[in-house]
């Protein structure tokens, strides 16, 4: 980091890592940390603070086999729901992106920082053991060609400044500590002015408004950043849905099935949360069969079941600790298409 004018610090544990990232962000820096499953569990407390204080930050979680110690060298996509719901108290403001290649790790980390600034929320790059250990060519374009979201600072007086506005999905500009705004940054229930002395009569209503604000600021409108990559989606009655490293085998299985004349396509979820409901619904509208391939016992499959039509059949292909093989997936496709 010092080579590019940045600051690196090895904190004592993951709780300290994520909280120092929050401190760094409020001091005016763009800040990130990286961990794997067990560390991600420890970080949930801090992620909740980042959600509540609307702190832009990026957290990379390289998923591994779990629960608990599991096996550090075995892959899994087990943290999909944790990335969404990990923190207590109905915290649902995390944006979660799932890279499937080293190049995408690079691109999505930049995207993660942009989204974190735009929505003032933690963004999680949900990688996995396979993608993280992969060696592939990565093209690093010149900095000038990258789209970089810069932090918006308030242009109003300290007196007029409000910590947040609870109406209109408004993400308020964020001053840094020392800018003269007399900030009171709290993980506590607060008013728009940032005050914490709230009467018990008013508290439920203010809490409802605050939680709705935190949730809806990232789901309001169909923002272009919710991404799904498709292959042969137009002319397929059978679609395979996957994300992250799993989608690499899915793509090769689908290509092979196509060569054998089977009408099958695939959709890879790049944005996992907020779930790209409407985009995926459009893709799966006229599909008879959906195959959901995940390296876990089933985390995204229920979300897919929720959005498909009553006549669409959903098959789930779970596996843990290793990628599905092309043969396994081909067998599954053949059974449904034939």
């Amino acid at each position, binding site marked *: 980091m010092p080579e*590019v004018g940045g*600051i690196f*610090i090895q904190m*004592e544990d993951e709780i*300290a890592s994520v909280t120092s990232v929050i401190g760094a962000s409020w*001091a005016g*820096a763009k800040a990130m940390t990286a961990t794997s499953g067990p560390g991600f569990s420890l970080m949930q407390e801090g992620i909740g603070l980042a959600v509540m204080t609307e702190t832009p930050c990026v957290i990379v979680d390289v998923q591994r086999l779990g629960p608990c110690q599991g096996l550090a060298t075995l892959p899994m996509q087990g943290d999909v729901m944790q990335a969404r719901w990990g923190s207590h108290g109905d915290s649902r403001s995390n944006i979660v992106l799932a890279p499937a290649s080293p190049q995408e790790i690079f691109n999505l980390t930049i995207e993660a920082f942009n989204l974190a600034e735009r929505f003032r929320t933690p963004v999680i790059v949900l990688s996995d053991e396979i993608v993280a250990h992969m060696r592939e060519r990565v093209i690093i374009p010149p900095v000038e060609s990258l789209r970089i979201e810069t932090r918006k600072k308030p242009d109003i007086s300290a007196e007029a400044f409000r910590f947040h506005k609870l109406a209109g999905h408004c993400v308020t500009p964020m001053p840094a500590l020392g800018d003269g705004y007399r900030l009171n940054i709290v993980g506590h229930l607060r008013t728009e002015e940032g005050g*914490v002395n709230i009467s018990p009569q008013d508290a439920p209503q203010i809490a409802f408004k605050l939680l709705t604000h935190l949730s809806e600021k990232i789901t309001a409108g169909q923002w272009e950043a919710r991404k799904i990559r498709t292959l042969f989606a137009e002319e397929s009655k059978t679609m395979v849905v996957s994300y992250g490293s799993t989608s690499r085998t899915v793509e090769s299985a689908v290509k092979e099935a196509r060569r054998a004349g089977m009408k099958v396509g695939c959709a890879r979820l790049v944005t996992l949360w907020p779930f790209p409901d409407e985009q995926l619904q459009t893709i799966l509208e006229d599909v008879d069969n959906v195959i959901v391939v995940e390296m876990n016992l089933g985390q995204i499959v229920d979300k897919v079941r929720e959005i498909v039509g009553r006549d669409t059949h959903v098959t789930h292909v779970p596996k843990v600790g290793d990628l599905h093989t092309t043969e396994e997936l081909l067998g599954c496709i053949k059974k449904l298409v034939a």
Partner: protein
Amino acid sequence: MNHPLMKYLREDWLPTVLCPGCGDGTVLQCMLHAVENVNIDIRKVTIVAGIGCHARLGTGHIAADSMWALHGRALSIATGIKLVNPNLHVIVLTGDGDCGSIGLSHFVHAARRNIGILTLCFNNSIYGMTGGQVAPTTPQGTATKTTPHGNLEYALDLCSLAETAGAPYVARWTTAHPKQLTKSIEKALQRKGFSFIEAITQCPTYLGRYTLRTTRASDILRWFLRNSFSIEQARKSDPEELAGKIIVGEFVDAPKPELAEQYQLQLKKLGRQPKRLSPE
């Protein structure tokens, strides 16, 4: 007429949530006096607090930037702040439960790193905010709400821990020593490195009621004075004489290079300036 320290407070947010007779207000007053005496711009002060009675007092009520964060994590948050903006005076307000229990590792490592944070610990020897449960700082034998027959564990000495971890400034006073406490805070505010100041403060509601059988703050303050032993005296005394005493004074005063500044120097050597979003 306004209180001379009112300019450092948010008057519209008063009163505080503290119990009558609580010592935390005394510590806050000492801190604000020190800020005034060494003439620090309150707009360049950032207060970070964890969870506890002190945190309710210290964050919302002071007219500085403040962050009322997670239980025990004030020091790790403050580490991120100080590294990014070494120009800020970062003060961490913490309690004995906050710093000596849940946040213990952050405390040890902040002292080890010598990050430029003034850590002011409000030690009431008990979990006051949650109802008077036994804490790692509760003296052995003490009756608390959760140890009605006496605490069987040994208390943690936060100052000797800070000293062991390498903190360049360590001091302890009680709320019965406001002048000395203010002087120590003044000294720490002028230092660049990590400073740890422990203020033994009275909790009449819980520690007073259960342990000392009094809810009068003045009784507890007198007890503090009777039981205090200066570090100079203590060094000459037998360990038996010191049992149950509060050792007060400056334990360490040995400045050494501070982390955030050293990091800036390293960046400069590499020909880099740290990238910050806000201009100085």
